C-alpha cells in the first residue's frame, strides 16, 4: 500500500435490518496517519458501519475498502493489520490476564512484549487474575493492551470509554496517544466512534457526523472550530435584530447569543452597527458542534 491509498474508504454504504435502514448511503474516507472521529446519536448507524468494515456484517449495497482491500474477500489480510476495541469487551472467563494476552498474541505475526509489560504495569493489572474477576474498566484496559501490542496500522475504537470512570477514560486516551502513536505516524491511524467527544477533542484531526445512516457533516477539526462560533452581545436596551443566516439566535432581555456557521464576520458587523455594550465571540467545541448539528439538520 502506498501512502496515498486511504486506510478506510466507504462509498454509498447501505445496510438494512429488515425494513429498517441502519446505514443509508454513507461515504467517508480516512487518510493514513489521521485520527478520525465518527460521531452520531444512539442508533445513527455507527456500530453497523464499523461492523461492515470488519466483515462482521455484509453490506447490502455500496463498497467498503480497508487498506484498499475488500474486507469480505481479503478478511485475513485486512484484519491482520488492524485492531478493534468494541464497547462491550468479552473474554474467556476461565483464562487469566496473561493467558488472554498469550491467546490474542497467537493470532498475530507481531507482538510487542515491551509495550505489553509497560501497559500491564501502568494499568496495575495483575497478570495472574482470571478475566471473570476483572471490573469493566480493567476489561477495557486488557482489550486496549491486546489491541496495541500487535502495533496495528489501524486502531478501530467503538465507544471505547463509555461507562468507565474518569481516571480510566483519561488513561485510555493517554495510552492511545502515548503507546499507540509512538510508531511511524503514517502507519498509525485511529478511527474512533464516541459520544464522549470532549475527551477525544485534542486527538481528532477530522470527523464525520452521521445521522439516520447518512453523513451530515464531514470536516477538519480546526476548520470546524473556525467555522462554528458562538457570539454573545449585550445592548443598552432590548432589541430584535433581523440576523440573517445565523444558525440559531437566543434572546434574553438585552442579551443575545448567536450561533454562526461560517458567517461570524458578517454577523459581528451587523451587531456592531447597534453599538453593543459587550461583544465577544468564541469557537464551538466539537461536542457543541455535534449538538448544533441537530439544528443544522433541521435547517
Amino acid at each position: 500500500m502506498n501512502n496515498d491509498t486511504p486506510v478506510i474508504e466507504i462509498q454509498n454504504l447501505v445496510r438494512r435490518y429488515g425494513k429498517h435502514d441502519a446505514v443509508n448511503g454513507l461515504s467517508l474516507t480516512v487518510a493514513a496517519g489521521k485520527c478520525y472521529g465518527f460521531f452520531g446519536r444512539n442508533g445513527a448507524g455507527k456500530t453497523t458501519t464499523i461492523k461492515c468494515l470488519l466483515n462482521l456484517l455484509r453490506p447490502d449495497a455500496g463498497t467498503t475498502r480497508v487498506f484498499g482491500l475488500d474486507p469480505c474477500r481479503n478478511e485475513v489480510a485486512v484484519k491482520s493489520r488492524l485492531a478493534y476495541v468494541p464497547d462491550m469487551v468479552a473474554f474467556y472467563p476461565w483464562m487469566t490476564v496473561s493467558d488472554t494476552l498469550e491467546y490474542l498474541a497467537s493470532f498475530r505475526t507481531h507482538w510487542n512484549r515491551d509495550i505489553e509489560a509497560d501497559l500491564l504495569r501502568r494499568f496495575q493489572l495483575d497478570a495472574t487474575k482470571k478475566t471473570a474477576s476483572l471490573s469493566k474498566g480493567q476489561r477495557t484496559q486488557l482489550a486496549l493492551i491486546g489491541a496495541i501490542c500487535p502495533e496495528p496500522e489501524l486502531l478501530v475504537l467503538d465507544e471505547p470509554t463509555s461507562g468507565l470512570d474518569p481516571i480510566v477514560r483519561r488513561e485510555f486516551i493517554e495510552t492511545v496517544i502515548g503507546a499507540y502513536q509512538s510508531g511511524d505516524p503514517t502507519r498509525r491511524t485511529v478511527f474512533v466512534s464516541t459520544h464522549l467527544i470532549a475527551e477525544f477533542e485534542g486527538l481528532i484531526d477530522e470527523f464525520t457526523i452521521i445521522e439516520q445512516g447518512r453523513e451530515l457533516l464531514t470536516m477538519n477539526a480546526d476548520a470546524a472550530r473556525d467555522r462554528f462560533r458562538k457570539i454573545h452581545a449585550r445592548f443598552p436596551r432590548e432589541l430584535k435584530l433581523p440576523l440573517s443566516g445565523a444558525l440559531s439566535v437566543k434572546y434574553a432581555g438585552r442579551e443575545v447569543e448567536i450561533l454562526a456557521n461560517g458567517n461570524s464576520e458578517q454577523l459581528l458587523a451587523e451587531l456592531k452597527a447597534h453599538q453593543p455594550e459587550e461583544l465577544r465571540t468564541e469557537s464551538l467545541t466539537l461536542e457543541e458542534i455535534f449538538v448544533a448539528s441537530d439544528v443544522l439538520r433541521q435547517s
Partner: protein
Amino acid sequence: MILQIDFKSGQPVYLQLVEQVRHAAASGSLQAGEPLPSIRPLAEELRVNRNTIAKAYAELESQGVIETIPGKGCFLRAVNSLLTKSARHDLLAQEIDRAIVAAHHLRIGDAELLALVQKRLDIFDRNNQAANDSKAQP
C-alpha cells in the same frame, strides 16, 4: 514552561502552541539552549494528537525559533531569526496593524495605545530581568 490549549479560542491548536513558545522566548521564561518538552509526554499531558505537537515544533523550527538536535530533542535557538531586517519589519507591521484595528474597535486613542505598548514592553523587560537574575543565583 507550561503550555495550555483552548479549543474555544478559534485558533488552530498547533498555532496556539507556536504562539506560547514564542511568547515564552520573548518573556524569558524559556531561554536560549533550554529544551522544549518532548513530543510524547507533552501530547499525553495535553491529550492532543502527537502530530499536532510535531506540526507546532516543525513550524517553530521553520521560523528559526527552535532547533532540533537528533536524539536529544528541541531547543530554543540563540539568535531566533533567519530573515532579513526588512522582512522582519514587514511581519511585525502586520501584527501591529491587528492591534491598531483592535484598538479602534475598543475606542482606544493613539496616545493611549502607545502608552499601553510601553507598559507591556516594561512588563516583558521585568520578566526577562527576573528570569536572568534567578539564573545568576542558583
